[in-house]
């Protein structure tokens, strides 16, 4: 099963729509609630990152009986130094993002913690692709 969601950069009112929709699907599929929480927390962090930093983005969630694969692709500034971005506390978020309760430099490390596989590739000035895989029996 494949699901696609569009994400609008800067629109915090809609941030969380994709994660909320994926959570409902996984619940219907009777996935272990602890695994659901890991998946949707990682996805939500990614979705907030797109809203906070990019112009627009697209999320693809591919679910099979053993795992969920999520691809978060955005058109935005990209990440010049991914190793630096992975460090807890490193952030380039605006004050607007911080007012929303984010931007503390914890998103990417938390995505890593909550996914079985995390892959990030980025082109500065073009955008970023984040791929997450989580196995249901993990």
């Amino acid at each position, binding site marked *: 099963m494949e699901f696609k969601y569009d994400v609008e950069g800067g629109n915090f009112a809609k941030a969380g729509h994709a994660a909320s929709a994926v959570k409902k699907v996984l619940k219907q599929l009777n996935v272990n609630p602890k695994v659901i929480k890991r998946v949707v927390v990682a996805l939500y962090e990614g979705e907030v990152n797109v809203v906070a930093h990019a112009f627009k983005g697209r999320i693809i969630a591919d679910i099979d009986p053993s795992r969920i694969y999520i691809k978060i692709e955005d058109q935005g500034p990209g990440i010049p130094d991914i190793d630096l971005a992975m460090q807890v506390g490193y952030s380039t978020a605006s004050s607007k993002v911080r007012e929303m309760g984010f931007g*503390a430099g914890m998103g990417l490390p938390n995505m890593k913690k909550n996914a079985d596989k995390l892959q990030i590739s980025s082109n500065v000035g073009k955008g970023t692709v984040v791929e997450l895989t989580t196995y249901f029996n993990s």
Partner: protein
Amino acid sequence: MEIKKIAEILDARIVCGEDLIDKEIHCGFASDLMSDVLTLDSEGLVLVTGLANLQTIRTAEMADITCVVFVRDKTVTPEMRKIAGENNMVLLECRYSMFRTIGKLYEAGLAPVY
């Protein structure tokens, strides 16, 4: 501690989820930073926060948090209430400061997350 007990201790207003106030809460966490809330693994948690916006509700939804207390007299918007209602959450509005709110809950025996 049941949610209704929390509401009583804090003299808080139940904004939504009145039918869920018998639910048991095991521990409390206080933060205005949702990034910190998203790192928690605890179950049966009450979130105490002064950040009243839609992302607080979305964060609670993703983190399986069933009860949120808004302190410092912050008010819940209709959109927040709608999403909280869809996700079976109890929202409480409390006029106390964060410090006083946490102090009262701790004094009543509510455990911290860590």
